[in-house]
């Protein structure tokens, strides 16, 4: 029954109605405020107040949902559902809470770092190396992120033949840790990749805060498959960075660490082959020299054994040949000498000296002729020609 303008209901009905209205109007709200009266009850339930200068909202959550150590005074962002309890007390049932603002983030980071360090999650001895023959890579990143685009561009430029599976997840915000953890689980359960790269690139401290989520950090450290992280810039440090196996400073750096440079490899292969061909050529040259000495030794042996006797015979023959030549030359010399004597006898000077004269010119009456004696040349005139009686 209801009076005019008013609805009559029981307390339970009122609580239900208010909760339905709240759920309809504010199914999920995000509130930023300062944490106060933080306490954990029975090791299960977390209670705290979220306040600003004027108001305070009581908050409730399970300890399991608490992903980072928190304490009073921290500025936090909570996401939850406003509810009225059956005792009529208003509170926010919190899904997630994370510190915001530089001071709170730093404090939460240091607290968790100390805790996990004690447990040995960052132990350098546990770090695994990038597999030498990396052909199957898992990437966890937002495909819209600039860092992801840089990473893909660089691995494609540097290397080829890799199968890259990309798990598209958020890489900032309150949902990011769970999504990244699911992707890690996905790759670990399938075991198809040899290495997992979590890529985020640069961002503000608030953007990168999700990588300090305790459960995510533990999942990174527990991954059966080695993990490389590129979260933030070189100066930023996240707990996931500390828990992973290999830390890269930028997406480009991660790509360089995971792949070889094809241009460099090409040069190395060509240089190696050139050097090797030189080794073969040098080996061949050395062998040829060695063989040449061997041949020399062998041929010297052959010379003594087989050729030398033949040479002696040749030498003997040569002596005979030379003697013959000498004999022939001697005979030729005598012959020439005789001819010289004979020629000497025919010398006109010799004849003239014996008192003879030489008559030259046309011998006919009235003509002049020349008479040559040993001492003189006489020009004479022909008067008459008489036939001479011969005494042969």
């Amino acid at each position, binding site marked *: 029954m209801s009076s005019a303008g008013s609805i009559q209901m029981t307390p339970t009905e009122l609580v239900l109605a208010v909760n339905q209205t709240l759920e309809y109007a504010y199914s999920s709200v995000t509130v930023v405020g300062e944490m106060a009266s933080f306490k954990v009850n029975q090791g299960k339930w977390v209670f705290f107040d979220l306040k600003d200068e004027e108001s305070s909202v009581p908050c409730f959550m399970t300890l399991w949902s608490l992903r980072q150590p928190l304490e009073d005074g921290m500025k936090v962002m909570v996401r939850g559902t406003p509810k009225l309890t059956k005792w009529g007390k208003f509170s926010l049932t919190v899904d997630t809470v994370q510190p915001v603002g530089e001071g709170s983030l730093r404090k939460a980071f240091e607290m968790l770092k100390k805790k996990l360090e004690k447990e040995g999650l960052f132990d350098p001895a546990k770090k695994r190396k990038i597999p*030498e*023959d*990396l*052909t199957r890579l898992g990437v966890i990143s937002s*495909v819209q992120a600039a860092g992801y685009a840089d990473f*893909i561009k660089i*691995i*494609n430029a540097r*290397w*080829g*033949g*890799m*199968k*890259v*599976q*990309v*798990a*598209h*997840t*958020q890489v900032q915000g309150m*949902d990011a840790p769970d*999504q*990244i953890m*699911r*992707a890690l689980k*996905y790759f670990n359960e399938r075991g198809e990749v040899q290495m997992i790269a979590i890529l985020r690139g640069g961002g503000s401290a608030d953007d990168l805060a999700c990588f300090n989520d305790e459960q995510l950090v533990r999942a990174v450290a527990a991954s059966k498959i080695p993990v490389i992280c590129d979260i933030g810039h070189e100066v930023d440090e996240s707990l996931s960075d500390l828990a992973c196996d290999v830390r890269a400073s930028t997406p480009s750096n991660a790509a360089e660490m995971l792949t*070889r440079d*094809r241009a460099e*490899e*090409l040069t190395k*292969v*060509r240089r*190696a*082959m050139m*050097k*090797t*061909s030189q*080794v*073969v050529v040098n*080996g*061949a040259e050395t*062998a040829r020299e060695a063989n040449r000495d061997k041949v020399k030794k062998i041929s010297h042996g052959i010379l003594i054994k087989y050729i030398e006797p033949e040479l002696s015979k040749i030498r003997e023959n040569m002596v005979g040949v030379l003697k013959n030549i000498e004999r022939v030359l001697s005979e030729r010399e005598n012959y020439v000498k005789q001819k010289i004597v004979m020629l000497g006898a025919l010398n006109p000077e010799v004849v003239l000296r014996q008192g003879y004269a030489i008559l030259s010119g046309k011998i006919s009456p009235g003509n002049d002729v020349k008479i040559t004696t040993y001492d003189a040349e006489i020009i004479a005139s022909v008067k008459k020609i008489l036939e001479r009686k011969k005494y042969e």
Partner: protein
Amino acid sequence: MSKAEKSLNEKIAELDKKVEWFYSDDFKLEDAVENYKNAAELAKEIEGDLTKLKNEIEVLAEDFTK
């Protein structure tokens, strides 16, 4: 593993081994020419791979928000 199944890294590692032989005590001139031929063939294959091979990028259809 057959030649076709070998990754680029594996081929490079194999070439490194082949080249090492030329500097090792096992080097024999009698085998050098044949070994050089084999290494040169592999080097040519690697050069081809280095120039042509591309990465296969697959964005998983899996929804990680749930």
